C-alpha cells in the first residue's frame, strides 16, 4: 500500500462527516431537542468543516481532480498558510471539533465520523503528506520570437502537391474544404 495518499481518503471522510454533523445539528435544532445548543454547535461546526474540506488538495502523483467550483474556497483555504497545509494541525482541529458533538444523540454520529477523519489525517501527517492547492493552469502568452518577423525565403522540402493529397481509402473523414496547393 505504499503509494496511497491517506489525505485523499481523510478528505472524503471529513467532508462526509461535516455533512453528517450538519444534518444532525439541523435535526436537533429544528426538533427543538433538549441540549439543542450542542445541535446549534453541530450546524456551525459542520458548515465550517465542509468549507474547509471541500477544496481537494493536489496529489503528489497523478492527476488531481477538482470538485466543482472549488476554486474560490481553494483561495480561502490557501490563505491560512501552514495552518491548513499541515495535516497535524488538521488532525488536531478535527479532534477538537468532534468533542462537543458527543453530548447529544443527533450529533453523536457526526462526532464519531469527524474523529475518524482526524485519525486518518494523523496517519497522513505521519507519512509526511501536505495540503497543496490545485492552482489553475496559467496559459503562457504565445509571443512569436524575434526571428519570425520575416516570412521564410526558402520553403521546407516537401513532396509535390499531387503526392501530398490524402488517399481516399485511408481517410477516416472527408475534408469539407478541398486541399489545394497553398494549404499546409
Amino acid at each position, binding site marked *: *500500500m*505504499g*503509494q*496511497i*495518499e491517506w489525505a*485523499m*481518503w481523510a478528505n*472524503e*471522510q471529513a467532508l*462526509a*462527516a461535516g455533512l*453528517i454533523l450538519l*444534518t*444532525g445539528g439541523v*435535526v*436537533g435544532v429544528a*426538533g427543538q*431537542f*433538549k441540549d439543542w445548543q450542542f445541535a446549534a454547535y453541530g450546524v456551525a461546526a459542520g458548515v465550517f468543516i465542509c468549507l474547509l474540506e471541500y477544496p*481537494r488538495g493536489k*496529489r503528489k502523483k*497523478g492527476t488531481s*481532480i477538482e470538485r466543482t467550483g472549488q476554486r474560490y474556497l481553494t483561495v480561502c483555504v490557501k490563505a491560512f498558510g501552514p495552518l491548513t497545509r499541515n495535516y497535524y494541525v488538521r488532525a488536531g482541529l478535527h479532534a477538537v471539533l468532534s468533542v462537543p458533538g*458527543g*453530548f*447529544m*444523540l*443527533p450529533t*453523536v*454520529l457526526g462526532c*464519531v*465520523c469527524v474523529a*475518524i477523519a482526524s485519525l486518518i489525517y494523523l496517519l497522513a501527517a505521519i507519512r509526511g503528506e501536505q495540503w497543496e492547492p490545485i492552482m489553475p493552469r496559467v496559459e503562457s502568452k504565445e509571443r512569436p520570437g524575434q526571428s519570425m518577423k520575416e516570412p521564410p525565403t526558402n520553403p521546407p522540402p*516537401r*513532396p509535390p502537391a499531387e*503526392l501530398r493529397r490524402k488517399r481516399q481509402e*485511408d481517410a*477516416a*473523414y*472527408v475534408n469539407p474544404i478541398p486541399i489545394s496547393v497553398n494549404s499546409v
Partner: protein
Amino acid sequence: MGNWVVNEGLSILVILVWLGINIFLFVYYYIVYLDERFYYTRVLVGDALSWARAPAACLNFNCMLILLPVCRNLLSFLRGSCQCCSRNITRQLDRNITFHKLVAYMIAFHTAIHIIAHLFNFERFMDAQLEQNETIAYVLSQIGNGDNRPYLNPIRTNETNPTFVAFTTIAGLSGVASTLALILIITSSMEVIRRSYFEVFWFTHHLFVIFFIGLVIHGVGEIVRGQTASSVLTNKPSNCAAQYKDWGKVPDCPIPQFTGNPPMTWKWVIGPMVLYVFERLVRFWRSKQKVVITKVVTHPSKTLELQMKKKGFKMEVGQYVNLQCPSVSQLEWHPFTLTSAPEEDHFSVHIRIVGDWTQQLFEACGGEKKEFQEAWKLPKMAVDGPFGTASEDVFRYEVVMLVGAGIGVTPFASVLKSVWYRYFNNDTGLIPKKIYFYWLCRETNAFEWFADLLQSLETQMLEKGNADFLSYRIYLTGWDEAQAAHFTVHHEEENDPITGLKQKTLYGRPNWENEFKTIAGNHPGARIGVFLCGPEVLAKSLSKQSINHSDADPRGVHFIFNKENF
C-alpha cells in the same frame, strides 16, 4: 433515427420495477404502523414511528439485493446457462456493478431517513419518561415499572439521556456500528479513492461483514413495541385512551398489554448471505488449484505478459480472471482480461505496470533481470475465474464493431486470436461475417505486442482470398513533430512505417458519425454488436451513436452497444 428502447429498454424496466418495489414497501409499512395496535406507541412518539419503520422495510429489501450482483461465479453461471436466452437478458447481467451502486445509494438514503426518525423517537421517548404530571404519556411510560408488565417505553428511567440509551441497547449499538461501517465503505468507494488507491477501497469494503452482523442483531432487543392483538380487544384505544387515569380500575379498560416486534431482517438477508458465503468458498477453492507460469514476456510500454497453465481451465473469448500472487500480497486479488484464445493450450494475461502490486509482480517474475529465469524461480500464482463479460457475445452477432482504447484492446486480442484459429480450422460455425476493429492508442510502442497478431491475420486473410472479413483501423491519438516528419517521408510506402502492416495507421481520433453511417449503409437490416473496452467518455459517445444510427423500424439496422467495465 434513434432507437433507444432497443438498447436501454430492459435496463430501464428493471430499475423501474426495483424503484416501484421500494415505494410500495415504504408506503405499505408506513400504513401498517398507523394501525390501532400502535396507537399508544404513537401517543408517545407520533409519526416518527412510521417514518422509522417504513425505511426499515426498504432497508431489508435493499440489503437483500446488495449481495447478489457481486456473486461473480453465480452470475457467470447464470450467463452461461442463459446462452439460449435472448442477448438482451445476458446484457443486464453485465451491469451488475452499476446495480450494486444504485442499491448502495438507496441503502444510504433509507439509512438517513431511518436514523433521523429514530432521533425523534429517542427524544420523544425521553420526554415521555421525564413527564412529571399525570399525562397519558406519563402513565404509558410507567407501565412496566415494578409491576411485572411488559413495558411500552424502551427508556425505563428518567435518570438517563438518549445518547446513553443509544449506546446501551442492542439496537442502538448495532445501529451505530452498522452505520459507521456503511459510512466508511461509502467514503472509500468514491471514484477518486477507488481508481487510485484500490487497496483502501477493497479492504475497507470488507467492513460489510460488520454491517451485516449489526443489521441482523439490530432487532433482537425488540424495542419497537405495540399492543398485543388480544389487548386491543379488551382495551380499545379509541374508547380507552381518554380514560387513561382509570386503566385497571374500570372494567372496560384494563391496563394494556404490550409486546415487541420480533426481528425480521434475518429472514430477508439469510438467503443472499448464504449465497455470498458460498461464492467466497468457490473463489477460495478455485484459487487453491495449481497454476504454473509457463512463459513471461516483457513488452515495451511497461506491459508484462504472463502465460500460465492450470488443470481443467476452460475459457471463452473476452473473459477475465482474478489473479493473486501470494508472494506479493496474501490478500489482494486483481482482475485481468485474458488475452489468449480458448483454442490455445495455455492462457495469458497482459498486465500494465501502474501501481504497487503490478510493480512487485513484475519484479517477482524477474522482469528486471535480463537473463533467462528458471521455471521454479517464478512465483506461485492463484487464479480465480474465468468470469464472463460482454465480449463473450461477440460471436453471436453477424456484424461486429470492436473498439479498444489503449490497454482496453486486450479482450479483443482474445477475440481476434480466436477468429484466427477458427479460420485456420475452417470452422463453419463462425457466425460473424464481418468484423470492424478500431484500436485507439496514444503511443507507438504500445503497438508492438499486438502488431504480430495483426500481421499474421492480415497474411492469413490474403491467402484465403477473404481480405474483407476483418477491417481494422489503428488510430494514433497522440503524436509529435518528429513522428510527423517520419510519417510524411514514408507516406508513399506500401507498409505502414509504425506497425509494418498493409493497413496504414491513422492519426487523431476516428469520426464516429461517419463510421457508423458507412457501416449502417453497408449492412442494412443487420443486428450489429458494438463492443467497447475503454474510457467512459468514449462509451457515452459510442452509446449515443449506436442509438442514433439504429432504425426505428425493427427490420432496419440496429446497433447494440456493449461496454466492458472494471
